[in-house]
């Protein structure tokens, strides 16, 4: 007798912020969802220095000016970008070609230099921030 291997992979299209902590950890630890760092020109320290999680108290005027739906739309853009490059950790964009994305990213994340890339980590933080703050703004709008 020979036993042949079968592997059934179940992926969900659900937004990551809808997953429980345990499911997120399983997603990130699952080798089928491994994201390989594409940008080798930036060091880990440089990448980390670009991203700071804003607290509710640090809401910038740009955030206040944006409608909640617009923020959510940009978050969906993040998701589509990351999905289309599921094996790539860093997505670089041109601020002139994507002024909307540039404005949103730099409004969400404080950085000493302008940010022109999106990482999956940034996307997750943006989602968490939107969930925390954006829903409140949406209620007020």
């Amino acid at each position, binding site marked *: 007798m020979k*036993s*042949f*291997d079968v*592997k*059934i*992979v179940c992926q969900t*299209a659900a937004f990551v912020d809808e997953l429980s902590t345990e499911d997120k950890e399983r*997603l990130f630890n699952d080798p089928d969802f491994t994201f390989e760092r594409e940008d080798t020109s930036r060091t880990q320290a440089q990448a980390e220095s670009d991203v700071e999680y804003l607290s509710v108290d640090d809401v910038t005027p740009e955030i206040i000016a944006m409608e909640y739906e617009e923020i959510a739309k940009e978050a969906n853009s993040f998701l589509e970008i990351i999905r289309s490059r599921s094996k790539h950790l860093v997505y670089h964009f041109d601020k002139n070609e994507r002024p909307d994305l540039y404005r949103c990213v730099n409004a969400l994340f404080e950085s000493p230099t302008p940010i022109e890339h999106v990482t999956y980590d940034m996307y997750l933080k943006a989602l968490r921030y939107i969930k925390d703050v954006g829903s409140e703004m949406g209620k007020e709008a």
Partner: protein
Amino acid sequence: MAGLSIYSYNKDTNQFEEISSGNQNNPLTSVHNGTDGQVVVQKLYLHHSENNKWYSAITLAPTPSNLVSGEASDLGWSLKLLAGDAEPATVDWSARVAGENLLSGGTVAELAARAPKSHYLVNMGAAGAVDNGYYPLWVQVTVPKGTRNQTHTGIKLDLNAVENNA
């Protein structure tokens, strides 16, 4: 039955690739959308390259055998097997019970008397006649709606056959 094995066809390389047996190097991989539920059908092939063997009493069994039967909108996961050149129709899959084996169909003449033929695997070759052809079989895997991210590698396809000298 050292030579008889299961193969998939790689359209990118135009090569038949042997499904791995025990080390997960090249498993039969079925990827599904768990949010909406998804049914995936794949075509595999039985084949051997022996030039002095033929094979009889061929059976193929998914294990564990207690996979729950059900459509994508129903309960549970399911794995179904059918054999034959033509891709099975929806009605064929619906009539098939999940987890059931592909049984030995015997010779070509004996297979002709079986019903439905798609539940059986014909002998590959005969005494004095080696058959190195690729015989299609079909695997349908169903993952229901609302299934969370997960990967299952505990399911196997057990192939049994009697190896004969040609």
